[in-house]
C-alpha cells in the first residue's frame, strides 16, 4: 500500500508547489493524488538493486556551441508579454517591506 496523504500533507504540497487550494477543492485533490500514488506503487515489486537510473535516452554528453551573442531583431517583443515593463526592467510587486 502506498503512502496516503492527509489534508495537511496536501496543503503543504500545494504551498511547496506555489499553489493555493480552496477548501472545497481539498477533498478532490487529496483523493486524486492518493489514487495516483496507489497506481504508481506497482513499482514496489520491482527489484532495482545495482540498476543505474535513466535521466535521458540519447546518450549525448556535453553538447556545446560557441559562446557568441547573436543579434535578435525582435528584442522588444520578448517583453511585450510582461505585465509591466519600464526603462528596460520588469516591474514586480514589492518583496521587502519598508520597516
Amino acid at each position: 500500500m502506498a503512502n496516503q496523504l492527509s489534508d495537511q500533507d496536501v496543503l503543504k504540497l500545494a504551498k511547496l508547489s506555489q499553489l493555493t487550494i480552496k477548501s472545497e477543492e481539498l477533498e478532490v485533490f487529496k483523493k486524486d493524488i492518493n489514487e495516483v500514488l496507489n497506481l504508481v506503487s506497482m513499482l514496489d515489486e520491482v527489484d532495482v538493486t545495482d540498476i543505474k537510473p535513466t535521466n535521458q535516452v540519447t546518450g549525448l554528453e556535453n553538447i556545446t556551441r560557441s559562446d557568441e551573442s547573436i543579434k535578435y531583431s525582435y528584442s522588444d517583443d520578448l517583453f511585450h508579454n510582461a505585465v509591466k515593463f519600464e526603462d528596460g526592467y520588469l516591474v514586480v510587486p514589492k518583496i521587502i517591506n519598508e520597516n
Partner: protein
Amino acid sequence: MSWTDFVTIEDLVQAIKNQQLTVKSIIEQVFEQIEQTRSFQVLLTDFKKEAFEQANLIDNKIRLQQPLGRLAGVPFIVKDNFLTFNQTTTAASHMLENFVAPYQATSVTKLINEDAILIGKANLDAYAHGSSTENSDFFTTKNPYDKNRVPGGSSGGSAAAIALNIVPFALGTDTGGSIRLPASFCNQVGFKPSYGLVSRSGVVAMASSLDCIGPITRNVKDASLILDIIAGQDQLDSTTISRDQVGYVVVNSSDRKITRKAKIGVISDYLIDGIDQKVKNNFLNKVELLKKAGFQVEDVTVPLIKYALGVYYIICPAEISSNLSRYDGLRYGYHQINVNDFETSIEMSRSNGFGREAKRRIMIGTYVLSSGYYDAYYKKAQQVRTKLIDNFKKLFKTYDFLIGPTVPILPFKIGEKNSDPIAMYLTDVMTVSANLVGIPAISLPAGMIDGLPTGFQVMADSQVDKKLLAFSAEIEELIK
C-alpha cells in the same frame, strides 16, 4: 479541383507546380471547410488574412517560375503548443490565453521555409496533459466519426483537422501517446519519431525527457515527407540527434522490399487484460493478414511493460512540475492583479492560471521529487525505466518491429472519464513505453469497429525511423 483529389502531398505539390490548381483556390477551400466544420471545435485560432497573403506570394512565384519549396502551397495546422511568431500560443490554457510568441518553433520555421502555409492552431488538452481534449481550458473537440465522443488527446484538434479534410497534415506533440492516440481515434496516421530527432525548440515544454514532435497525416508517405523536412540537429535544442544520411521519404518499391524479410513481434502483454475484446479481435485479425502476406510474426513478451504506466506517472509529473515552475505571472502568462505581496502574487497567478489537471500533476511531481520521497519514487522510476529500456533493446536484437494495438479501447464518450483521472491515464497504457524508451512508434488506421476507428501500433529501435516508415507504408493498405 480540390486538394483532396490528390492522395499524397507530393502529388498535390506537383499539381500546384503544374498550375492545375492555384494556391489561392486551395486556401479558399480550406477556409470554407473550416466554416463547414465549426461545430467540431477543432481550432483555437486561424490566420485567414496571412494565409491568403502567403498564397498570393506563392502563386506569383509559380507564375514567375521562381524556385519553389518542397511544400509549395500546402496548407497545414499546428497544435497550439507550438510557438508561431507574433501570434497567440495558448497551449489551450488560461495561463497563456493572451501570450503572443516572440519567436517561433524550429519545426514550424522549417515547414514555412518550404513554402507550406500555416492555417491555424489546433485545440489540445491544456499543456498537453490528457487523452481527450477535455482538459482544454476553452472547449472540447468532437470526434469526426461521432460527435458525442472524444477525438483523443492531447493532439486531438490536430488529428480531427486531418479527419475533417481541413488540411493534409498537422503537427502534434507526443509525450506519452499524444500523437498516436488521437490519430487512432480519428482514423489517421500518427508518427512519433525517435527522441531527439525533431527539435523541441519553441514548443511549450511538458516532460523534457519524453517530449517528441511529429506529424499527423492521411498516409505514411506524407508522414515520411514531413519528417524529412523537420528532422535534424538544432543548435537551439542540445538534445537533438543527427538525421539519417539517406533521409526519411518513403520512395518506392526498393525501400519496401527490405521489409519483406522483417521479423515482427506481437507484444502479447498488451492482449491479456484491460483491453476491449473487439479491439483485441480486430488486432488479431490484422496479425493474421500479415502472416498470410508472408511476414514472419511471433508472439513476444516484455516482462517490465506492465510497469511502464507506473514509471510514466512518476517521471512525467516530476518533469512537468519542474517545467511549469517557470510560470510566475510576472514575465508572461496570467497575472493576478491587485495583489501587493510578491509571493501571494505568484501563488494567486498560478492557482487561477492553471487548470485542475496541471495543478494535480504539479503537486504529484513536487511530491515525488521532494527530499524524503525522491529515492522511493523518482529514482526508483528512473531505475525501472532502465530495465524497461533493456527489455526493448534485447527484443530488437531479434525482431525488427514490435506491434500491438495503439489504444486498448474505442473512442469514448465526452464526459465518460473526465472525473476519474486514473481511468483517463489507463488509455495511455500501450503508448507510454515508446516515450520512456525513446524509440519511434507509429499508429496506423486499422479499420472500423461499430463505426468507430481503431489503431495499429508499430515500434522500432531507436533511430530506425526510416525503416519503420517503409514497413508501415507497406502494410498500411493491408490492415486498413
